Each structure stands twice: as structure tokens, then as C-alpha cells.
């Protein structure tokens, strides 16, 4: 994976490397706390997968392998920035402070969203590939009009990079010099579609043709992702315009719990990427440089177990919503057809009504 185009600050073996443009600014404490985030988020994914297997979730979209990409980017954000995720940004959501159980409301099929986007300054999931990218650019145009020093950051995958909405987002961000960072997690697959179907050349290069910088970063390298994201965000906040970041990473698991990757990819590929595990390399660094002890690592694992228990309890406590709530929040100012639906539901005895 020696690649001139790839920004890397930490090798898969956990060795620091130099880069002409980027230097890690993270303290050992911060790295340790980000390590903790990654462990917990991985645990969240494992627990969610088993909850799904046990019929407690309708679906789960795991992020094993992408923890560094998400925690690195998530921690680079400032509180007032605003993020526009897909369905797979659990690490970003975590960084924004979204309570983990809320992340699972979508997957338990009790909500189409899950949290209050303004509280966490993290938008609700966008499932239609690419939609959120234009929304983020528009939000960034709002930041400009407010004269605020904030940035919008939006997430999408290698597959979504082919959608017109993403590409129009590039046109608009360039045209208006909008304070937005496009964060593409190239995890090599869009369900069964390999990266090579979307593009024969590295994705980050696309940005230049639209008139703004594109950077490919080792998405499994926490330190590099953090610095690249931080720099791009600072540049955006300072009026420097958009950046496309391609985080070169890998989806270690299935697309979702409904998917069967054995049908389309070879195990050897997964094996190769196991050696580039984003958590292991930070651990190696911490052991060597910060002298983090086994006890300290164990404490985090224990915390992750606690966390998982709590998550499970929270999920199991989420009951079936009263069906009448389906009429809530469709319109701000009501609509007779909504009233009619509510009335019918009460008359049919499906709900007691008022909610």
C-alpha cells in the first residue's frame, strides 16, 4: 500500500511516517481517547449485528474496518459544524454525541430518523444515495450568508460517487466556494459493486476537475484522517472553499445484515485488509509511544462490554410505536387528509387516538 497519492502518518504496523504536508497534532491522551471511541463503536457494531440476528433489529449496516475514517473525521469537527451522514455513519454520530440507542431507532424500524439533528448538529440518515450531499452544500451556503465560521461536512461512499446529486454538489460547492467538506469513504464496495465499476482512476482526483482540491488519505490511519479532515475543515471555515477527501478504507463486513458478500468477493481480499486494521495500528502506537498498559486497554474493553449491555437493554426497551404516530410530523400546519387518516385509525380501534 505504498502509494504516493495516499496521505499516511501511521503505517499498518503502527509506525509513524513523515508527510510533507501533514504532521500529527494529536496528544497521546487524545489518541487514547480516540482509540476508546473506535473500540466502542466496533463493539456497537458487533452488538447490533447480534441484535439483528436475534430479530431485535430489522437491519444493521456495520462499519468494521472504517472506524478510523469515522472517528478521525468525527473528532476533527467543531461543535458548531454540521454533518450530513448516510446510513453508515455510526462513528460520526458517536463523535457528535448522538446517544447510541438513538442510532438504532432507524434499524429497529421505530423511526425513519432517530435523533434531534439540531441537538447534535448531525443530520438524520440519508438513504437515497447522494441526496445529503446537496443538502450539505445548501447548508454551507447558509453558513456563508450568516457570515459564520462554521463548516458543513457530508459523507458518502464510493458507490454513491456516481450519482448525479454528488457530482452536482461538486459543481455547486465550487461555484459558490461553499464551506463544505466532502468526505468519501471509499470502502471498495457498493454492496456487490467493486470500486472499479464506479471509476478507473482514484476518486479524489475528480475534485480537481471541478476546481477544488481532492486528497486521498489512508482511511485506516486515524492520525492521517484526523489531520486531513481538520485541515480541510479549517480551510472551509476560513473561507477557503470545499475539499474532497477520499478515505481509502475497506468494508470488513457485509454491506448490511441482509447481504452475503461470499457471493461476490474473495476471502483473501478481506484477509489482506485485516492486516491494515485501523484499531490495531493505533494500539501498537499507544503501546510503544504512550506506554499504555494492558490494564488500560482492558479497562476500555470492559467499558465496551458495559456499553453493549446498556445498548441491548435500551434497544429491547424500545416498544412498538402507537400506530397513530405515523400521522405526526408530516406537516407543520396540518392537512385534512392527515386528520381523516387519524380519524379512521381511531374508528377502526387501532389506536386510542390523540398523541
Amino acid at each position, binding site marked *: 500500500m505504498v502509494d504516493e497519492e495516499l496521505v499516511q502518518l501511521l503505517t499498518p504496523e503502527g509506525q509513524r511516517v513523515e508527510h510533507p504536508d501533514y504532521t500529527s497534532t494529536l496528544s497521546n491522551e487524545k489518541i487514547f481517547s480516540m482509540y476508546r471511541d473506535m473500540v466502542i463503536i466496533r463493539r456497537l457494531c458487533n452488538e447490533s449485528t447480534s441484535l439483528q440476528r436475534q430479530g431485535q433489529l430489522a437491519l444493521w449496516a456495520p462499519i468494521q474496518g472504517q472506524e478510523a475514517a469515522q472517528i478521525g473525521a468525527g473528532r476533527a469537527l467543531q461543535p458548531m459544524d*454540521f454533518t*450530513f451522514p448516510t446510513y453508515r455513519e455510526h462513528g460520526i454520530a458517536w463523535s457528535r454525541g448522538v446517544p447510541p440507542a438513538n442510532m438504532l431507532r432507524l434499524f429497529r424500524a421505530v*423511526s*425513519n*430518523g432517530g435523533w*434531534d*439533528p*439540531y441537538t447534535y448538529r448531525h*443530520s*438524520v*440518515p*440519508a438513504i*437515497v444515495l447522494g*441526496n445529503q*450531499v*446537496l*443538502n*450539505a*452544500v*445548501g*447548508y*454551507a*451556503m*447558509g*453558513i*456563508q*450568508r*450568516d457570515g459564520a465560521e462554521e463548516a*458543513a461536512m457530508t459523507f458518502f461512499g464510493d458507490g454513491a460517487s456516481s450519482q*448525479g*446529486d454528488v457530482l*452536482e*454538489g461538486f*459543481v*455547486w460547492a465550487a*461555484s459558490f466556494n461553499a464551506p463544505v467538506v466532502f468526505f468519501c469513504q471509499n470502502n471498495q464496495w457498493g454492496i456487490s459493486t467493486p470500486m472499479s465499476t464506479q471509476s478507473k482512476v482514484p476518486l479524489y482526483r475528480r475534485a480537481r476537475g471541478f476546481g477544488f482540491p481532492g486528497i486521498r488519505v489512508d482511511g485506516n490511519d486515524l492520525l492521517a484522517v484526523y489531520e486531513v479532515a481538520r485541515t480541510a475543515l479549517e480551510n472551509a471555515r476560513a473561507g477557503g472553499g470545499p475539499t474532497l477527501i477520499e478515505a481509502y478504507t475497506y468494508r470488513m463486513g457485509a454491506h448490511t445484515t441482509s447481504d452475503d458478500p461470499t457471493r461476490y468477493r474473495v476471502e483473501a481480499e478481506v484477509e489482506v485488509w485485516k492486516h491494515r486494521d485501523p484499531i490495531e495500528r493505533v494500539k501498537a502506537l499507544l503501546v510503544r509511544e504512550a506506554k499504555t498498559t494492558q490494564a488500560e486497554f482492558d479497562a476500555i474493553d470492559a467499558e465496551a462490554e458495559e456499553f453493549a449491555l446498556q445498548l441491548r437493554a435500551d434497544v429491547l426497551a424500545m416498544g412498538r410505536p402507537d400506530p397513530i404516530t405515523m400521522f*405526526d*410530523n*408530516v*406537516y*407543520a*400546519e396540518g*392537512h*385534512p*387528509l392527515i386528520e381523516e387518516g387519524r380519524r379512521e385509525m381511531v374508528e377502526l380501534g387501532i389506536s386510542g387516538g390523540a398523541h
Partner: protein
Amino acid sequence: MATVTMTMAKALNEGLRRAMEKNSKVLIMGEDVGKLGGVFRITDGLQKDFGPDRVVDAPLAESAIVGTAVGLAIRGYRTVCEMQFDGFVYPAFDQIVSQVAKLRKRSEGAYTMGLVIRLPFQGGIGAIEHHSESPEALFAHTGGLKVMACSTPNDAYWMIQQAIESDDPVIFCEPKSRYWEKGEVDLDAAPAGLFDAAVRRPGTDITVAGYGSTMKTILRAAETAAGEGVSLEVIDLRGLSPVDTAALVDSVTKTGRLIVVQEAPVHASIGASIVADVTHRCFYSMRAPGLVVGGYHIPYPPTRIEEDYRPTVDRILDAVDRVMEFD
């Protein structure tokens, strides 16, 4: 009461201006809306007075116009998106149906999708293809959206302001063939609520409802029908989602007969839907089946023959005859 005579185009322009004056969060975005003032000049002079940050000339991409307006709404802005013509709204269809219509629900009420999509719609201007369509049913079918159509300068002036003030997303349909027709505008008071229907001519025999461009045609038909002894009660729907069903039921309870006139084709349309709904509510009053006089089930024809596609006075009178025959 300050009333001024102006065209519908001017009324919209004045309505937009007033909305922008009242609320600094109101933006306009679209293709050619700035210096050119839009191809119909509806935004004439607004960029000059409010600046290019509030009247935004967009790169040519409708999905992006709506998609960024969604982000601006999340940030607290209210964007009036201009689609240059009805036939160019489809590239934005996904953003409208998947985001505009659903984000309030998805965010459990946190997001207010305060945005308006202006759609110069219907035919009658002798244009080339894609410039004369009536896609309102596609939006009316979609929960989460509201849809309305103006037919007079006074309504245009007030409804555009009400639409902008509304916390729900509004597809605002403007009958482009009527842009240059003049009417009285009362600058002091709105004529009605946002989605209230208006009785444009009282009558006793048949309720004839329409919206946008067809109102004038219906009123002409009513004149002729009156000469032939048939009294049409003419209703301007104004709201297409929601429809002011109560007003229709009131009227049809009295007349026992219903015709809806639209330029859009009939299958899976608003007119057909109204006929089914009102027939249900007024079943025992119905003296004849409700009819829809609409466009045909074809792509909009070359405009040298468009007047035989759009509902004409003749076609409305033919429907009047057919309805009256049922007695």
C-alpha cells in the same frame, strides 16, 4: 382599500418583493433569476435590490437547486426555488419526493421544510416541447408536500406570500399563459386562506371546478351555458393538496353535478380523485356522474395544435351537455 391593477407576473414580483422585505431569511434561487429577472421576468429587479446572495443565479441543475434549498431550510432560510418551466422539474423530482416531502417526518419534527417551488405550468403559450406540462398530480399524490395554483393577480400576490410564510413545503403552480393578464390586486388584505377554494361564479345546475389557466375558460363556458339556460357554479380550487373538499361538497350538495377541468391528463389525476371523493361524500345528491375534462393521455402535442389538447370552452360545454343528459 388600496387596490391596484397589475398583471399576474407583476403581482408575483410584488408578492416576492414584499416577502423578502418582511423576512431577511427569504431567498430566491433559480436559473436566470438575477439580471435577467427570470425568463418570465417574475423576479425582475429583485437581485438589483436584494443582492446576489439573496437572489441567487444557479448553475443549471434543478436537483441541486432544490437539494441546496433543503440544506438552506435546515439552516433556517426560506428559499423560493424557480423552476424555469414545468418540464424541467423532473431532474429535481427525487429531492422533492425523498427529501423535501419526508425530512420533517424523518427528523420527527425538528426540520421545517420552509421552501417554495415555483412552477410556471400548463400550456397555451405556443412553446416548444417540455414548456407546457401539468405535473401537479405527481406532487399532490405525495404526502408531505402541499400544492396550490393561482389564477388571478390578486391570488398570485397573496398566495405566494402565504406559501413562503407556510412552514410546509409548497409546490406553487403558476399558469404561465395568464402571466400577462391584468386584474385588481388588493394590497391590504388576503382574499382567503392558503388552501381555500373560491366560488368565482355562483350557480345552481352544475359545479364546475378548475384551477390555474382553466378558470378563465370555465368562466367563458359558464357565460355561454347561462345563455343556454344552464347555470354553472364555478369554483377555483386554489388548493390542490389539500383540496378544499368542504367547499366542493357544499356546492355539489346543491347542484348534484360535478365537472372538474384541468390541463393534466385524467388517469391518476387530481380531477379524477376529486370526482371520486366528492361522489362518495355527496352520493345521494349526485344526479349525474362527475366528469373530468382534461388533457389527453399523450405527451403534450406540438403547440400548433395545443388548443385542441387543452380543455376548450367547447369541450367544457360538451361535458355540460353530457352531464345534463343524465337527468
